[in-house]
């Protein structure tokens, strides 16, 4: 490895919920411009890992972003250090329009915000928001509210919201669930384009063709532990991965319902 610090580095990250160990000693890195996949059967601890990195689950071990420790910081501080995430269940602001959902991520509240509101009206930066929406192909619905959109579109709004407001690392929790095959392929292309511009991406998804197609490297989780890591080609043939998936097809389209943990 080079001297340069990885964008995201976790060392021996563990999360326990009561007696259950959801993540155990997970060590993982994401480099700038890299798309890293995180796969595993339902309940393997993928979402928990994202929760732990973004500050929504209590964890032990180290989390470094650009070399700086962020474990122990509250979620909003981690977001401000460049770590953005999406949610499995969308978690959009239903009362705000799509454009306003993004605007909230750009202009944060505070005393400065109060003065800016009065003096300038705090018009959201249309160019920033526009290009983020263009990336996910949702320019047409900028003034709609999330409940009026399809599940797939809501997920994409979540991705766009994670893109704005200073993002160096993108953690995507099943963004493609709800997209059809064609949309999923298009999303893969866009994801490559996003990563090429600099940010690192950690992608969780059950759409194996998407994951194997776009990711540079993969980590496989089972029962909270990393059981394999490597390129998509290596993972496809790793015996322990096949064993973990035994009894369930490798391409598992059923979305895991493991929300409500935090």
């Amino acid at each position, binding site marked *: 490895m080079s001297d340069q610090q990885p964008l995201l580095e976790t060392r021996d990250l563990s999360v326990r919920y009561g007696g259950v160990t959801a993540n155990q000693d997970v060590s993982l890195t994401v480099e700038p411009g890299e798309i890293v996949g995180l796969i595993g059967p339902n309940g393997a601890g993928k979402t928990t890992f994202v929760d732990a990195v*973004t*500050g*929504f689950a209590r964890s032990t071990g180290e989390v470094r972003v650009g070399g700086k420790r962020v474990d122990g910081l*509250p*979620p*909003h501080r981690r*977001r*401000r250090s460049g770590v*953005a*995430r999406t*949610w499995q269940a969308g*978690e*959009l*602001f*239903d*009362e*705000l*329009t799509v*454009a*306003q*959902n993004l*605007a*909230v*991520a750009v*202009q*944060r*509240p*505070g*005393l400065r*915000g*109060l003065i*800016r*509101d*009065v003096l300038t*009206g*705090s*018009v*959201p930066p*249309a*160019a920033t*928001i*526009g*290009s983020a*929406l*263009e990336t996910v192909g949702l*320019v*047409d619905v*900028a*003034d709609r509210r999330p409940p009026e959109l399809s599940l797939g579109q809501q997920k994409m709004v979540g991705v766009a*919201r*994670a893109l704005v*407001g200073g993002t160096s690392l993108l953690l995507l929790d099943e963004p493609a669930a709800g997209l059809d095959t064609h949309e999923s392929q298009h999303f893969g292309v866009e994801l490559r384009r996003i990563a090429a511009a600099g940010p690192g991406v950690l992608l969780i998804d059950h759409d194996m063709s998407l994951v194997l197609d776009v990711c540079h490297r993969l980590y496989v989780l089972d029962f909270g532990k990393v059981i394999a890591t490597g390129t998509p080609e290596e993972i496809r043939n790793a015996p322990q991965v096949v064993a973990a998936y035994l009894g369930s097809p490798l391409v598992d389209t059923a979305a895991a319902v493991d929300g409500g943990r*935090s």
Partner: protein
Amino acid sequence: MSVFIQFVFLGLTLGAVYSVFATSLVGVYAATGIVNFAQGSVALWAAYTVAALRTDGTLVLPFGGSLRFGDVTSPMPMVLAVVVGVLSAGLLALLAHLLVFRPLRSAPPLANVAASVGLMLFLQALVVLRFDTDALFAQPVLPFKTFTLGNVVVNASDLIMGGTAVLVALLLWAYFRLTTTGVATRAASEDELAARLVGFSPDRLAAVVWVVTAMASGLIVVLGAYTIGLDPTSYTYYVVPALAVALVGRLTSFGVACAAGLLMGAFQAVLLWANTLEWWPSWAQAGLGDAIPFVVVVIALFVLGGKIPARGALTQVAMPEVRIPRLRPLPVAGVVGLAALAIALTSDSWRFGIVTSLILSLIALSLVLLTGYLGQISLASMAFAGTAGFTLSKATTEWHVPFPISIVLSAGLATLLGVGVGIPALRIRGAQLAVVTLAAAFAIQSFVFNNPSFTPYSGNLIGTPNLFGLDLSVRRGTDLITLRFSMLVLVVVTTTTLVVMRWMAGSTGRSFLAVRSNERAAASVGINVAATKLLGFALSAFLSGVAGCLIGYSRGQLSAASFSVVAGLSLLAIAYCGGITSVGGALVAGFIGPLGVFYVFLNQTLDLGQYYQVISAGGLLLMAVTNPVGAAGANAEMLRRLRRRRSEHSSTSARTPTVAPAKGLTSKVETHV
């Protein structure tokens, strides 16, 4: 020491009332998920019913006439009167369930708070209207016997009260834990559909709990009224300490609620005794007992830790719709011009009503920002206003702070208080937060506003406002309210409202709405949720504080009655129904609010001033039931549908392939954000 124990026993009677109210609240919460602020006023009705029956055999009906069951020489027998009184409480609760709370089953929590506060105010006003409250006294129900325990003389009645409270708690506990219907009631509260599928009717189960708890609360008040004394306000507000102890039991434990209630009564009695001690500081002589509930709530929430279980909901409850305001010069100028014209064309009480409405709308606006936008229910707005008002009195008369700075200084102090009251909001939400803020409001009212050490009974004069030598005082000669002062109020209220509208339409409003909508997601986009909530409380308290200063200047002299908690409660309820998410709703609330234009209209034009509270609280209930998301919510929904239809028409015709998408978006973002 024996005196100490003596007072502990004396406190059992009041403690029993707290205790039964608290266990009743726990029961209602377990069955319906509603925090019933009206628990005390239902019991109040029972107490006055018994008092009237025992005086001259009159059975007062809530509406229409009354029935006679005897006369002054031979009133209704005691046992029968108690039974009728207790039944009346049960009947009122059944009506409340059928007419108010059942229709609001799937409404937002704020609708339930508004409705139960409305019911509380309505019943209290009804008691004052229907009963001759000045002439009626409670008569003894329990025996006068005393006996000695060691060297302490104990009233049998105190022990019977305490025993009754324990019995009520035991029975409620047994009902909810041991009987099939009780368990089904809890289950139905958590999952209505599942309960229906198994063959229970959640409505009927809830109705049973409403009636039983109301009868228990009625009984304990009827039994204790002779010892405690009967007046139309105190029982209504005993719900505050009761809520505090119910919170100690996490709104789920009958045992803890019962024990904590008895303890609080005993503790307050001991405080009364402590007041007579020589070394007891004079500042602690008034209102400390009423401040205890707030302290208890804070301890329950922070020191004991743990969370109050929220009621399981099948679907996401709807929040009141929001329409982000757009500042258009013409309508703004129109409204301001109209107000100026109204002020210029009126005088004396009408003009005073208009000015009061303007000031109240500012307080309502503070609630729009905090409750409508940020989703934090606060019942303490009047306490913030009062804090600023009393500070203004000190600032102008003792420290001689000149006019505009005096307002900023006083409102600044209210802001600090607002942040303090807002801290519990970092842990709890919804109706529980309403309880905490209500307890805080009572603590401030009793301990600060009613405490002669801070606010002398001799009056809190306020210096006349002067600006660059211009006399802006409210009165001149026989003129009750001068044009100059009225215009000053109009200018201050207009400027502040415009600033608030900019906040609502800007990044602050959007972030508030984001926090209201989804705290987790808000944190994930980088919003500091805790700081944002405190910011909301600070801004809201500041606005209320400015309004409190204007109230101060308009009265020239302040008393605790200028900022009663009740006025704050009705203002929130009115603001909710007028539209808690819009500036228009705040204006409506100011119009209808206490001593505002609507009151003057009732009082001067219709000569119905004494019906003001019944009419406004009754109207409030009606609005809350027919329009659970608020009037503005309903209007906004309709408008949005209309606009959607129109924009769909225009966008399909205007869509041309040559328009670049990014450009199209730019204009869209600008027009819609």
